[in-house]
């Protein structure tokens, strides 16, 4: 598969293939890129940011994030869960909105304070 390395502005285009006896990787210019390509192939990870609904807040939605990266293939499952969450103000920055999302062990936390009206 083709991977654009995002680790520095050079944006190397890396080709990575599984072959007998290991991986065939071409097009990277440094070790950081090589490791990134392997990770992108084997287990790409992403931070998820979105909003959840808030009751009695100064805004109707609260921005949230996964505390750490989660596997990329779980992004839509996580979004689905979070689209059904409703929290109630007041909210404080860092409050846990959802624990252990999709069994990843990663919590979803509030990105900001939301005062109650």
């Amino acid at each position, binding site marked *: 598969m083709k991977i*654009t390395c*995002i680790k520095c502005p050079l944006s190397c285009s890396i080709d990575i293939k599984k072959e007998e006896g290991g991986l065939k990787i071409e097009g990277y210019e440094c070790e950081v890129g090589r490791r990134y390509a392997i990770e992108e192939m084997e287990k790409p990870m992403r931070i998820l940011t979105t*909003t959840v609904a808030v009751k009695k807040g100064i*805004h109707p*939605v609260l*921005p949230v*994030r996964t505390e750490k990266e989660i596997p990329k293939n779980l992004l839509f499952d996580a*979004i689905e869960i979070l689209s059904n969450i409703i929290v109630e103000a007041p909210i404080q920055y860092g409050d846990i909105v959802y624990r252990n999302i999709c069994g990843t062990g990663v919590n979803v936390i509030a*990105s*900001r304070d939301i005062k109650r009206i």
Partner: protein
Amino acid sequence: MLEVDVAVIGGGAAGLAAAIKAAENSKVILLDRNDELGGVLPQCIHDGFGNFIFKKMLTGPEYTQFFIDKIEDLPVDVKLETTVIDIKKDKRIIAISREGLLEIQAKAVVLAMGCRERTRNQILIPGYRPAGIYTAGTAQRLINIDGILPGRRVVILGSGDIGLIMARRFKLEGAEVIGVYEIQSSPNGLPRNIVQCLEDYNIPLHLSHTVVNIHGLKRVEGVTVAKVDGNLQPIKGTEQFIPCDTLILAVGLIPENELSKEIGIPIDTVTGGPFVDNYMETMIPGFFACGNVVQVYDLVDDVTLTGEIAGRYASFYAKGILNQTRRIPVFRGRGIDRVVPQFIREDSKDVTLYLRVKNIIRDAKIYVRDPNDNIIYETKRRIVKPAVMEKIRFTLKGFYGNLTVGVER
């Protein structure tokens, strides 16, 4: 009439940093027309902020929260829902607030009004004016602050970071994103955003394409897109109708300088912002500027840094302890599109310059020359690109006269 040492206009990343810094030794007022602090940051809910200052990737709201918490502990007079409508040369400020007209006499002023988005009028797409056309920032605000999804079938014009981020955002909210159309032959946004906002979600990117017509009377019913040639002109016969209910314009930002112009502050036509020196002082003494009002910065960290500089020296000016020295101009040399600051104070030591190059160059050398063509600073980059702002720092050792910045292979 209120009397203060320093008045900061705009409470985004730049204004917050300026007010916090200035409050270390002077009486500060901070004015913003929004109902909360942070400028555009509260609506930028994605991560990607603060990598340099906090050494981690924060979301926009998280980044702002730090500064909001800080300013709440300081004796800064924060006035929200207060729009500045006029600033006089003698630093008298007129604003409209809920309480009515407000008059403030400041000793120094920091301009931190940020930028605004280019709209359809500025890029001239023909067609009717149906509902369903939004700038990316407006759509971002609707979704991330007001909780409203403004469309279900979306076309995005422009591949800058804001366009890419909004493509992902619409997708995550359940809308169909038909594609991102970019008139240039290479994308404008960071590779990270191309990968994580488009490729991750199978959203197509069409380079060398633009929207040539918008259809629909009441609501957008579709757009016509076409391929463009080397001069960015649509090619006849390549037009294609795309049904959609929403067109998102992510076609660039312009520094917001109506107020600055009325004061008579000289504006650099290249950046769209005031000429400044390395203390972020404009060409009118006592008026400072920082953040996106000066030029559109790539990173909020740099916006914060310019805010701190402006705030510090504005407070020095207000206290009467800022030396007035001569300024050395910094010229754009070979391969350089823009440089900020455009002037350096003669008594400075460490200098930071932000620049954009005109073309992609691999194994580039960025240099600074004095009037006799002596190289006083040189640095290498594996690659420089117009889309990525470069930052160079060097130390002045004595007087040089005019400086010229250039880039070559």
